[in-house]
Structure formats: C-alpha cells, structure tokens
C-alpha cells in the first residue's frame, strides 16, 4: 500500500498505568531506546504501520501531571509535548481508578492537545465497574478506547482511533473547566493578556508555570501583566485561604469526580485491594520487611546464577569446541581462534544470566513488589545519600555489574541513577570470584571464607564512602522526597513479561556486544605485534606495555610484567585475569608460579587491586551508555583505578612495615 505519511504519537500516562505494555503491544520489536536530550532518562521510540500510515510512537516518562517542576520526568514530557508538538497524544489510564488517572488527560485537554484516551486494564475494572466509554467520549469530545494491554484486547481498536484522531483533528479550543470563585480573576487577566491567547495560558500563569510566565514577560506590556498576576495571586490567597494552584487542582479533581459519576456504575466492591493490603501488612512490615526483601534477593540470585550457570557453561563449551575446529592456519585462523571467537564468547557467556535477570526483574516489577522493595529499603539507603530504589541494582551488582547498571533505569531521579551507577562497580561481581578463590586457596588455606568476606565487605564500605563523597561533591541539596504509589499486587502476564525481557536482552546484546567484540579484536592485534612473535608473550606489544606498567605496580608488591598484563587483560573481563596468568605461566603450572612470585601480603594486595581497579569493558560501555556522558564514564574509570592503586599500595606498605605476613 502507498504510504499516506507519518503520524507522530506521544504515549503519556501514570507510572503504573500499564503504559509500557501498551507501547510494547503497539510497536512490537520495532522500537529503539536512547536518552532524552541532556538527561539520562530513557527515551523509547517505536513505530507501526496501519491503514497506509507509518505511526511513530514516543513513550513519555510516567507522569501524574504537568505542574510539578521538580520532577525531571514531567519536565521532559512537557518539553516534548509543547516543543515537538506530536500529532496525537494517547493517554493511557488505569480504568480501575479513573478518579485519579483522569487528571493528566484533563490537564492536557485544557491545553488543547489532540488526545486519544486509552482506558487500560479494562478487564480488571469490569469486575466491579461499568464504564460508559461512549458517553465519556461524547462529553470530552475525543476518541476513547478500552484496552487490556496484557492480553492484547483493544490494541487494534487503539490503532484505528489514533488514525481517526489524526484525520479529524479536533479544534484546539481546549476543554473549559469552571474554576468557580477564581473565574472573575481569570476573566480579568485574560483580557489583559489578550483574548487571542487560549484561556489555559491564564490558568497556567496563575499556577505559576514558568514557561507561560516567561512567554507573558515577552509580550508588549509583559512586565505590567506579570505584576497584575502577582497581585491577583495574593488577592486569591488572602481571600480564600489557599493559593491559586491548590484551588485549581481541587477544582480539576472536582470536575473529574462529577465526570466519573456520570459515566460509571459500580457493581459490588473490589476485594482485590483488601488482599493487596493484607499482603502489604506482611511485606512492608517494620520487622519482616527487610528479611523478606533479603529472601527475595537471595532467590533472584539463585535463579540467575544457579539456573543460568549450566546454560552459560554449555555456551562456553560450544565455543571451545568451535575454536578447536576452525580449519586452516595463518593469520585468519589466528584472528578467529584468538580474537573473534573469544570475543563473542565473552559476550554470549553472559547471555543466560542477563536474560534470566531481566526476566526476574520484570516479574518483580509487574507483580508490584519492586515498589515495595524500594519503600522498605529507603531508610537504609538514605544514609548513603541514595534512594530506596537504588538497593536493587546494587545487590544485583554482586552477580554482574552490567545488568545491574541497566537495572538503574527503574530509578526516577538523575542523581540517584548516576550515584548508583558510579558505585555499582565496587560490588564484587561473580567474575572476580575466581581470582579470590585462586589466591586465597594458595596463600590462606583454611581461611578462604574470611578473606572472601573481607573483600566483599571492603567493596560495600567503599561504595558507601564513594556515594556519600560524590553526593556532596556533585549534587548538593537535591533531595528527592519519598512519595510513591504502591500499585495493587497483580499476577504478571506471561506474554507481557517475555516481550519485555526479550526487548531488554536484545538491547544488551546489540550495544554492549559491539564494544566487547571490538576491544577483543584490538587486544588480539596488540598481542600479535610485531609479526611472528608468540601470542601475548613478553616480546609482543602487549607484553611490552605490561613491562612499562609494572614499575607502577612495584609499590603494591606485584611489580612483574605478568601481573600487569593479566590486570590489563582483566579490563576486558575480570574472568580473564586468572586465565591470562595461566597462559603466561603455562609451562610451570599456575599455583606453583604464583606461590613463588607472590607473598601472602602481595597476594592480598593483588586481590584488592582486582576488586577495585577499572571496571571491565562491558561495564564501562554500559556506564557510558546509561549515563550518556563521557565525563561520568571517565570519572568511573579514573576513581576506581586511583582508589585501587592507593589501597593496594597502602595495604602492602603498611603490611611490609610490620614485616610480618598477615596470615
């Protein structure tokens, strides 16, 4: 069919309205994510083709309204709506609670936007509510659709209504709400501003919308009008005891209440809330809350690493077999066997863990538990200058830093996201474990557990200190107060969960994969220069680089080139550290070699270094992508390198001063 053109659609709605499911249903896998300009909040776009149109959908951040200037999400949404001016805005609402959810669409209608109202979760609402959507559509003058995004019901209809809204564009007169006792002031100010402007401009001005006030300031007699608005605000506050914002919000909710009464009919009571409250009285309980959270996290780990482990091993073995079977010889064979295949292997070995992790996170989110977890952990996390929601990504970091950093997407404020991302590399991931196991079993036999525990604890303590430090250095005075809706518990829908998991996993594969892969090839090249040299030996370029770095490691007690090279390769993936040492000391056996080269003290200092220094390439790549900033990425690399070096030197020097091995 011939393309009739593009339709640009924005998807808006509350954080818990099922907006993401609607987005996934509309666009399927035809979506991509990036960041909103200047901030790290995720921007999702996708498209679908329908009735000859290509419909481009932008998923706005979950918002409650457009008035709260402090919320970064609302700022983004507002800027997008007013500056990009999409053809149609679909507002997704939770039909089980129209009283609250209609606030956003009403506010948008007042401003004259071209809306489609999506009554989502209609299947749940039908259990106790009859909604006359035809009547609602007639009163508001916009298309209204009933959907249940988790089953896919009504999605076709939604597509149809989007086209309909686009083709017969409503006039942008805007919905008129009667503001009662404010009407006199509104009329007076409207005459001052000029009747050629829409009425909502005056209302937004009374609500102290800074963008509108700036616009008015630029008018011919702008300064005068601003003075009049101020005087008007003062008069209202004096006369009615409330400032205009409060009265306006109240009147809007009043209008909605009347509207909902007209178009709905309750049948029976909801028992779903009673059950939800009962679950909450246990899950968010003052005493039980944290133990339950710990248990949930424990099972998450079990699933992700116990279940993912065997699959990872299968993939790993497949790669080993594959690299053994590459035919031929010469540089191409070597590039495949030592560069490309190990590079792909490093990416794909993570895949089962990551997919499972996203699966569990999606289930936790969709069931409603995630909001509770954040709430329960809020107090503890506050002492670190972090939000309760940061606890989940940080704990996931013990498994693998990469998905942990991606899990920070659930955090709303930019400050919380960046602080959390910056300290996640200090959570000792599973890839660092082989290093600890090898060195502690050689040098601290019988005390491996204590050594391991001390390293994990060191990471946590450093995370607290670093978070606190970065907080005071870069984010003075920005406090996000805790106000959070706790959505009712729901049974997650299998299809919805799988779609969301797949979308998140695919994204990881595409973006992080590219970077890991290219660095692997680069390392292979360095290991083979100059030509004819033994791969990754003392005389290769990488060996020479190792030699030039090793003097720097001297004060930490491991100033030999093999240690330097293994740490250098370890930046690729921390698992590689042990493997590299294995290759370098290949002839005499690893355990013997390290027991000759290291002392217990230098072994411990080496482990500290491995824990802290530069996050692996995959982590760096994902930090860059998620913070959308080279500066934060550079800071993450440099602070960890510096901190790792200082601490390992400190441990070695202080230990040597007392001149006794620490076992």
């Amino acid at each position, binding site marked *: 069919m011939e393309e009739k053109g593009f339709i640009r659609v924005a998807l808006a709605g509350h954080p818990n309205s099922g907006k993401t499911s609607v987005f996934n249903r509309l666009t399927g896998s035809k979506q991509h994510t990036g960041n909103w300009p200047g901030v790290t909040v995720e921007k999702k776009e996708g498209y679908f083709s329908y009735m000859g149109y290509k419909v481009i959908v932008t998923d706005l951040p979950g918002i409650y309204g457009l008035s*709260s200037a402090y919320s970064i999400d609302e700022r983004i949404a507002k800027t997008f709506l007013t500056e990009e001016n999409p053809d149609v805005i679909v507002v997704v609402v939770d039909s089980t609670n129209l009283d*609250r959810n209609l606030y956003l669409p009403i506010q948008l209608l007042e401003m004259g936007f071209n809306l489609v109202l999506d009554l989502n979760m209609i299947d749940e609402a039908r259990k106790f509510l009859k909604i006359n959507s035809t009547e609602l559509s007639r009163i508001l003058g916009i298309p209204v659709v009933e959907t249940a995004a988790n089953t896919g019901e009504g999605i076709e209809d939604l597509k149809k209504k989007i086209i309909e809204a686009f083709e017969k564009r409503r006039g942008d007169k805007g919905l008129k709400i009667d503001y009662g006792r404010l009407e006199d002031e509104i009329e007076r100010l409207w005459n001052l501003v000029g009747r050629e402007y829409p009425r909502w401009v005056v209302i937004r001005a009374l609500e102290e919308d800074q963008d509108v006030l700036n616009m008015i300031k630029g008018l011919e007699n702008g300064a005068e009008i601003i003075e009049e608005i101020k005087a008007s605000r003062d008069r209202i506050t004096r006369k009615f005891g409330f400032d205009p914002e*409060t009265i306006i*919000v109240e009147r809007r909710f009043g209008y909605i209440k009347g509207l909902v009464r007209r178009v709905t009919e309750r049948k029976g009571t*909801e028992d779903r809330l009673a059950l*939800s409250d009962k679950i909450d009285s246990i899950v968010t309980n003052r005493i039980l809350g944290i133990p339950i959270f710990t248990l949930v996290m424990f099972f998450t780990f079990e699933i992700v690493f116990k279940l993912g482990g065997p699959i990872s091993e299968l993939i790993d073995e497949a790669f080993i077999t594959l690299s053994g079977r590459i035919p031929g010889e010469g540089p191409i064979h070597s590039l495949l066997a030592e560069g490309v295949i190990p590079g792909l292997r490093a990416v794909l070995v993570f895949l089962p863990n990551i997919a499972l992790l996203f699966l569990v996170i999606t289930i936790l989110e969709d069931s409603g538990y995630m909001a509770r977890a954040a709430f329960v952990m809020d107090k503890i996390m506050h002492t670190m200058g972090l939000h309760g929601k940061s606890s989940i990504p940080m704990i996931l970091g013990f498994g693998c830093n990469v998905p942990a950093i991606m899990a920070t997407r659930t955090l709303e404020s930019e400050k919380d996201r960046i602080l959390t991302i910056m300290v996640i590399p200090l959570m000792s991931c599973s890839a660092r474990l082989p290093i600890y196991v090898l060195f502690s079993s050689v040098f601290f036999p019988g005390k491996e557990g204590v050594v391991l525990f001390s390293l994990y604890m060191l990471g946590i303590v450093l995370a607290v200190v670093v978070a606190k430090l970065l907080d005071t250095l870069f984010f003075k005075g920005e406090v996000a107060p805790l106000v959070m*809706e706790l959505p009712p518990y729901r049974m997650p829908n299998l299809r919805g969960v799988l779609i969301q998991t797949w979308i998140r996993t695919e994204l990881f594969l595409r973006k992080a994969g590219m970077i890991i892969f290219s660095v692997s090839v680069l390392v292979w090249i360095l290991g083979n220069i100059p030509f004819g040299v033994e791969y990754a030996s003392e005389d290769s370029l990488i060996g020479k680089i190792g030699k030039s770095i090793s003097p720097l490691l001297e004060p930490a007690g491991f100033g030999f080139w093999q240690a330097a090279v293994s740490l250098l390769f370890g930046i690729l993936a921390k698992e590689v550290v042990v493997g590299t040492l294995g290759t370098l000391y290949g002839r005499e056996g690893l355990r013997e070699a390290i027991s000759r080269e290291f002392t217990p003290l230098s072994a411990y200092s080496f482990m500290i270094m491995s824990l802290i220094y530069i996050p692996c390439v995959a982590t760096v790549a994902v930090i860059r992508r998620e913070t959308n900033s080279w500066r934060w990425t550079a800071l993450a690399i440099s602070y960890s390198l510096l901190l790792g070096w200082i601490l390992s030197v400190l441990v070695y020097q202080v230990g040597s001063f007392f001149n006794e091995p620490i076992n």
Partner: protein
Amino acid sequence: MGRSVEVPLLFLGPGEKGIISRIVGGFCARARLEEMGLTPGKEVELLSPNPIIVSVDGVRIALGYGIASKILVRTRRRI
C-alpha cells in the same frame, strides 16, 4: 463525639481517617503531591504508621516522614 483537631498526617493512628486541610511549606514536592490526589478536602486513611502508607481515592501511597509531617489533616478526636 470528639472535636475536630488539625494534626500532621504523621500523627494519625493506624486505621484513623482525616480530611486534608492544607499542605504547609513551599517545598518542591507539593505540586507532585497534589497531582497524585493529596489535595485539601480529600479524605485519607492511615493504613500503616511505620513505614507510612496512606489510602486516598482507593490508592495506596507510601510517604517519607519529612513529607508526612507537612500534610495537615483534620480529624475527630476525643480529648
């Protein structure tokens, strides 16, 4: 019957209801609270005092102590 008193939401007992009378202080989260339906005139019920969960319009909202001390409610109390 008791008489009506104005107290911070923080001081409601479990299961106690009150009508929001005002939100004090010009702090930045106020617009957010109002958009979420915590406006003067709305009835709130304290479901859990520690940590604080309130019910408004049939929705559960978790609040930090700082914010809960700035929402004033009218409630009937025996004194």
